[in-house]
């Protein structure tokens, strides 16, 4: 009866390697699903690009390359690019797909399989990582075509994509949590509106020290700020250990929190 014991707690290494394997299997399915509904990727790419163009168009004159120290000699578009990448990372549909799956009953079918509850949570998030990495890469390539340069080079570009894509997992994970809690598409969509302001209570137009005092406080308390600053440092400054470290620290802590809450939710799911 060894098979029986694999499933119980304390399975150790096999348990977690199985969790990873099952997450990849479920993630592969979610990626296939995204490829079959390409229109769902459309807003992920074009809304952030739209904001990038509009914001740069409106503010580039105020912030010329020469005479704006925080641009490090680049155009204002380079300063805006990280905000656009993070906006794109927060369009993940994992929560809404999950609601659909709960309502249709397929989620119960998956729950009835002997896979780790962690894999049920991570499957779609893995797909979210891959989608975001792909979209972010395309966006950066477009930005390069418009003269924006990544100061930290190709290694920095990779670090940037990883950070943004991990953040996409965290964000989508919180949406999944809402989906599990409410089991309603309307509530999940509405709930995402709670998280959305986090994207804008950031130093997305000027650096933090140039914000008004209330905004500066809000931005300092907002974890998204540190991811934005981390990515921005890679675009403008090169490798700034402190900024990158803070960015990854935020991603790490929120990831652990999101996973812990999700596992608890799935385990108590009735």
């Amino acid at each position, binding site marked *: *009866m060894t*098979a*029986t*014991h*694999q*499933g*119980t707690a304390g399975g150790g290494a096999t348990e977690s390697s*199985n969790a990873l394997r*099952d997450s990849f*299997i*479920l993630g592969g*399915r979610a990626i*296939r*699903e995204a490829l*079959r*509904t390409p229109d769902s990727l459309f807003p992920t790419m074009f809304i952030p690009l739209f904001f990038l163009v509009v914001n740069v168009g409106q503010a580039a004159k105020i912030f010329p390359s020469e005479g704006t120290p925080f641009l490090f000699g680049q155009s204002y578009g380079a300063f805006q690019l990280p905000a656009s990448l993070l906006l794109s990372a927060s369009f993940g549909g994992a929560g809404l797909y999950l609601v659909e*799956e709960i309502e*249709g*009953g*397929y*989620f*119960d*079918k*998956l*729950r*009835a*399989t*002997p*896979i780790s509850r962690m894999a049920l949570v991570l499957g779609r998030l893995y797909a979210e990582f891959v989608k975001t990495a792909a979209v972010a890469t395309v966006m950066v390539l477009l930005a390069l075509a418009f003269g924006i340069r990544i100061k930290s080079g190709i290694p920095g570009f990779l670090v940037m994509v990883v950070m943004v894509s991990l953040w996409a997992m965290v964000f989508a994970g919180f949406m999944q949590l809402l989906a599990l809690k409410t089991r309603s598409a309307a509530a999940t969509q509405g709930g995402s509106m709670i998280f959305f302001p986090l994207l804008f209570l950031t130093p997305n137009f000027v650096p933090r020290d140039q914000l008004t005092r209330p905004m500066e406080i809000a931005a300092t308390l907002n974890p998204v700020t540190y991811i934005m600053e981390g990515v921005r440092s890679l675009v403008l400054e090169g490798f700034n250990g402190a900024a990158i470290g803070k960015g990854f620290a935020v991603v790490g802590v929120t990831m652990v929190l999101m996973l812990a809450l999700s596992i608890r939710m799935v385990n*108590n799911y*009735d």
Partner: protein
Amino acid sequence: MPTNQGDLNAPYALQTDRPSSMSAIKAVGLKKTYSTGGEEVEAVRGVDLDVQPGEIFGFLGPNGAGKSTTVRMLTTLMTLSAGTVHVGGVDVAADPHGARRKIGVALQEAGLDERQTSREILVLQARLFGMRPSEAGARAQELLELVDLTEAADRRVKGYSGGMKRRLDLASALVHEPEVLFLDEPTTGLDPGSRITVWDEVRRINSMGTTVFLTTQYLEEADQLCNRLAIIDSGLIIREGTPASLKAELRERTGLDTDPTLDDVFLDATGRTRDRVAGEVKEI
């Protein structure tokens, strides 16, 4: 067998212990209370079940009786408010993963991912039960043949008919050759032809050694398929036995001179006389 005459609990403990490792399904004192918005609903109020390996066991009851709730508890999908459940000898609460390996389940709403093809769904399901890609592919093909979906295998499920979806759902419950198969209203919403196809499949699966637990609204279905059945109403089992024994009991008790049908047994058990049912319909 040396039993302690003075200790009345000892032989009792032996008795409850033994069937739990021999029975295909053994439930004792099963209860479920839902709490929604401060209000408590006692959906299942103390159900005992003992289904033997190889049986097709029918679980009948009117709408809202607690059939689906019971199935969800038996299949690890829902926590138990009280009681214990063993499936294939495994305690579902203590070792849910162990139980899941023994259980195949097709719920009332055929839960399928409509963006995938049936082959993809079956391969995925097989992979989640630990098979390697090549094994999973072979198993999927086998099952597609079993439920006669080979032609539609590579089309997305979205375009399938209700009957095809049911058959696919059934197949997906079978990927890991479960010891016990749970089917919650497997033929509801199917035309008579598709219904008979599903019956044939259930019989075939059962003949290969799988125990089947099925809920149904159709008494004819229970009569045709089931060795034994239980009738549940308002969360309690009110009749249990073979279709023949239940009919015989009613005939004896009411002194009928013709053989009653299972319909009559059902109506008698749930306190719904034919007159009253007709009356209720009229009121609407």
